[in-house]
């Protein structure tokens, strides 16, 4: 008894997968954008703050990093609205979760990047009379971003893959599209082969593009 591959049904419903892929990318892009803001603000705050603030930020980071993403997704989507009076769609809820999630990882990335900026550069900034804010904006952050760019790319690629978790709260992204086709056509092997290829190709394309950006910036090290 052989299993004959038949992709026809997959192609008939390909719009589900294509739309899903676009939504996955959208979720990842919005989440990393918000995550970068969270990460930057908290990292800058962390390196200049006292013990109390540092402890609170560290607690946030540790909480996120030690709880599985799928649980965080459940907590925010099902848990939060039962405790506080708040209503949001599944995609919004997922973006909020993934933003907090990536923010926690990026705090660590940016914090170590800020600490890796050579002291001499900060001295040079002081010596020409820049104020602390001017030093942060014009000296420390530009150098830090160059240092952290590779880690930022990697975070973005994993975030793109992590969007598949959104399927558990019925956000119609790529994995959800695959499940839908599977339930309706029973072509389980075909649909997951196609979806795997889609994740793979998109991930590689992103990586390739981001490495190009990094190379452009590395010239300025």
């Amino acid at each position, binding site marked *: 008894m052989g299993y004959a591959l038949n992709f026809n049904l997959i192609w008939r419903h390909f719009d589900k997968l294509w739309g899903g892929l676009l939504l996955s990318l959208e979720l990842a892009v919005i989440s990393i954008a918000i995550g970068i803001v969270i990460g930057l603000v908290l990292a800058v705050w962390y390196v200049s703050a006292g013990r109390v603030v540092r402890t609170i930020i560290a607690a946030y980071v540790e909480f996120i990093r030690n709880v599985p993403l799928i649980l965080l997704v459940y907590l925010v989507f099902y848990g939060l609205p039962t405790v506080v009076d708040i209503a949001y769609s599944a995609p919004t809820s997922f973006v909020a979760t993934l933003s907090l999630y990536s923010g926690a990882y990026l705090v660590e990335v940016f914090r170590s990047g800020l600490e890796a900026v*050579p002291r*001499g*550069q900060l*001295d*040079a*900034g*002081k*010596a*020409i*009379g*820049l*104020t*602390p804010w*001017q030093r942060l904006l*014009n*000296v420390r952050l*530009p*150098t830090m971003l*160059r240092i952290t760019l590779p880690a930022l790319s990697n975070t973005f690629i994993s975030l793109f893959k992590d969007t598949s978790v959104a399927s558990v709260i019925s956000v119609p992204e790529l994995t959800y599209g695959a499940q839908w086709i599977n339930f309706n056509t029973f072509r389980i092997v075909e649909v997951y082969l196609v979806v795997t290829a889609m994740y793979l190709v998109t991930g590689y394309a992103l990586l390739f593009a981001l490495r190009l950006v990094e190379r452009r910036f590395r*010239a*300025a*090290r």
Partner: protein
Amino acid sequence: MSTGSNDTPALLDIRDVSKAFGTVQVLRSVSLRVAKGEVVTVIGPSGSGKTTLLRCVNFLESYDSGSIRIDGKEVGFRETGTRQRRSERDLAAMRAETGMVFQSFNLFPHLTAAGNIMLGLTKVRGKSSAEARTIAEHWLGRVGLAHKANSLPAELSGGQQQRVGIARAVAMGPKILLLDEITSALDPELVGEVLEVVRSLAEDGMTMVMVTHEMAFARDASSRIVFMADGGVSAAGPPGEILAADTDNERLRTFLARFRASHF
């Protein structure tokens, strides 16, 4: 001991400055007066406090006691006599009055040669970017790098980077220029081009305090040499007097003898 004549008003007036890093006393009651237009060279064995003293002048380092004044104005502390540190904004404004050139160049790696010079001019001096560009190009020309205005630091040799570093400092129009072992990180064949720039600034009357191991240059270019040992000023005077082989200051004699032995 005389560390400068008292009748000319001092542009830089360091009085009884002491500083400790933990249990290590790096500066012991150092006093030094530098008049406008003077070039003062600080020499001494490593660990004698030369660099720390220089970094106190623009308050990159704080100090425990004593005072440092530029043009009569206390550098790092408020004039209330309570040793209350100035606000960061005031400190930044004070630091803009001194220029500093570093041993490791410390150029901003993401900015071009011109961009490095323009940053302080636009952010601190409030110049438009066109004005700043003109000034940057003028100073790049002065240090022989007019053709490198758009190069990033990584594309420049050490000697070129350091000349940009000098241009960045002097373009701000500082009252005094601090040079911290600016040729120590350079390959020997690149030292000359940097010292040539310093010499031309001295000829223009720029007030300078420099820490260096280039004794020949110190002798030619300085109005005065200060010898530091163990965090204190051990000897100070005109180059001919300080660098004389037969000085009766024993530590200085030992330092010079060791220095000559290791450099020839």
